[in-house]
């Protein structure tokens, strides 16, 4: 998905003729309706933007409000605020499994962040600076790996994980979350490392550093911003991943949040406030993480897409 080193710059050059077209043609082709549109347009735009804010936020607010209500309130006053803050719903959701699932998600997510980011950074540095033989082939395999979908590998992985005796363990998820995210993460970090000055490596070499010392002591600290982005995107992926977690974990005590919540939904059925509390507990960490690390999040996304 990041095939080209295609950036905005070359694009800017080709598109100049298009602007020239506007410059010559615009004045004569003005529509008669444009005047009306100019006056009512902005109003409609603001109404639309506000409506979209409501459409996006209201379901989430409804979720949070409902998790403080009791069953009767969920039915009788669905639109309003809860009459009191019933924290007990969260305690109930917690003991109904959410705490267990939450812990599992934290374990799998943090372990896979560590393995994915380190292995990818290691490979990226090798590809950028260490002249790996067949480096082009490796890049090709990584690029292909970006396009291969987890669903397609599901059935053979079911057998493979059993043969490796890691089926139904944390390791199944950690290994798969790492393997399937290495392509994206390597490309992301590689794009950053390409821009680092090669003089740094030369200097380290002159000071007697081996390549791996250079990597650990100099390159890794210098790449911190992109490592943070990579870690955040991996967190988002691992925290929310569903299909592997559904198929390769059957032990109820090992389930991660996305699958655990689905289980809980069928167990609790009509205890609505507790269900809402469980959803809220699952959603909040990622929303908070996003609000804090927004800049790094978006850099990771757009750098990963653009290069």
């Amino acid at each position, binding site marked *: 998905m990041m095939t080209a080193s295609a950036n905005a710059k070359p*694009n800017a050059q080709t598109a100049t003729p298009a602007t020239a077209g506007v410059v010559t043609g615009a004045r004569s082709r003005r529509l008669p309706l444009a005047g009306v549109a100019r006056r009512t347009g902005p109003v409609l735009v603001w109404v639309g933007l506000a409506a979209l804010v409501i459409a996006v936020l209201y379901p989430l607010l409804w979720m949070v409000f409902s998790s403080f209500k009791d069953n009767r309130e969920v039915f009788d006053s669905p639109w309003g605020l809860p009459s009191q803050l019933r924290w007990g719903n969260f305690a109930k959701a917690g003991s109904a499994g959410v705490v267990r699932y939450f812990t599992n998600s934290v374990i799998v997510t943090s372990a896979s962040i560590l393995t994915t980011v380190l292995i990818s950074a290691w490979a990226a540095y090798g590809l950028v600076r260490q002249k790996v033989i067949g480096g082009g082939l490796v890049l090709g395999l990584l690029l292909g790996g970006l396009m291969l*979908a987890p669903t397609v*590998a599901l059935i053979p992985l079911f057998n493979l994980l059993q043969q490796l005796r890691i089926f139904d363990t944390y390791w199944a998820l950690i290994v798969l979350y790492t393997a399937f995210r290495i392509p994206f993460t390597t490309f992301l970090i590689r794009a950053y490392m390409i821009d680092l000055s090669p003089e740094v490596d030369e200097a380290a070499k002159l000071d007697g550093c081996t390549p791996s010392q250079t990597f650990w002591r100099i390159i890794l600290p210098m790449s911190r911003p992109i490592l943070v982005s990579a870690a955040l995107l991996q967190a988002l992926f691992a925290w929310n991943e569903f299909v592997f977690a559904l198929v390769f974990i059957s032990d109820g005590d090992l389930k991660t949040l996305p699958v655990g919540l689905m289980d809980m939904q069928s167990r609790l059925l009509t205890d609505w406030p507790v269900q809402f509390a469980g959803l809220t507990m699952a959603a909040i960490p*990622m929303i908070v993480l996003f609000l804090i690390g927004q800049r790094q999040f978006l850099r990771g996304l757009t750098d990963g897409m653009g290069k």
Partner: protein
Amino acid sequence: MHVLNRWRSWVWVLPALALLLVFVYYPIVENLRLSLYSWNAFSAHPVFVGLDNYKTAAEDPIFWRALRNNTVFAVTSLVFQVGFSLVLAAVLEEFVHQRLRGILRTIYFIPAVISITVAGILFSFLYNPQIGLLNRALGALGLDSWQHSWLGEPGTAMWSIIAMSQWQSIGYTAILFVVAIQRVPREFYEAARIDGAGRIRSFFSITVPMVREMTTLITILTISGAFLVFNEVMVMTAGGPSNSSQVLGTWLYRNAFLNDDMGYASAIATVIFVITLLIGASQIYLSRRRRIEW
């Protein structure tokens, strides 16, 4: 000696490559082989059946319905996540002042960071005829005849799932378009304005052609995402009622792990593989052709 040293550099890519080959590439190749056998999770001896599993697929009406549902998913997602999102991004950049723009972008992006499971369950509550807000809102507007058991009726289940997916993804693709629009040199818009081009005309003459590359990328991602959809459907309907919202992913899952027909499931996986391969190849083709144009 020198050559040996250079082979030693494989130490850098070996961990990544090993994981990739064992857990990504091997299963995909193995899946092709497995799709030629009739077997289940407990059978010791898979029986070679040639292309029988693919014949089963071709004669299976639910397989075709699933494929059609994926296609509908893709087309609807294109309209909203490419068309509507591009307009939204342009409006944000054009009309909204700096600070408010940042706040709106953040708000629109939030659904993309909560998990599909959470969003799916939340919307299944929203659609719920007992407690859901949707029917109540329709009732309040006097549109009682529009009320449905949204996920419980074959006619509305698939569309309800698709709607949830748009809710989750519009902000995400809009942000990507915003970044692309910000890369367009401001002078182009100024030149157009001086020459009397309105906002709508600038949008079509400058913004659309200038972000074409991002549009292609998002189009590809949206289409392949629509053919891989699984989580949303699994959480909200599991393919029901009466298989009306079945997609390729859920039909694969059902055959593999509930009907225990692993061979047929592998064949469905191969179909998904071929579809994503075609989409990926067109991505490479399109970006390469464009690079030569420069």
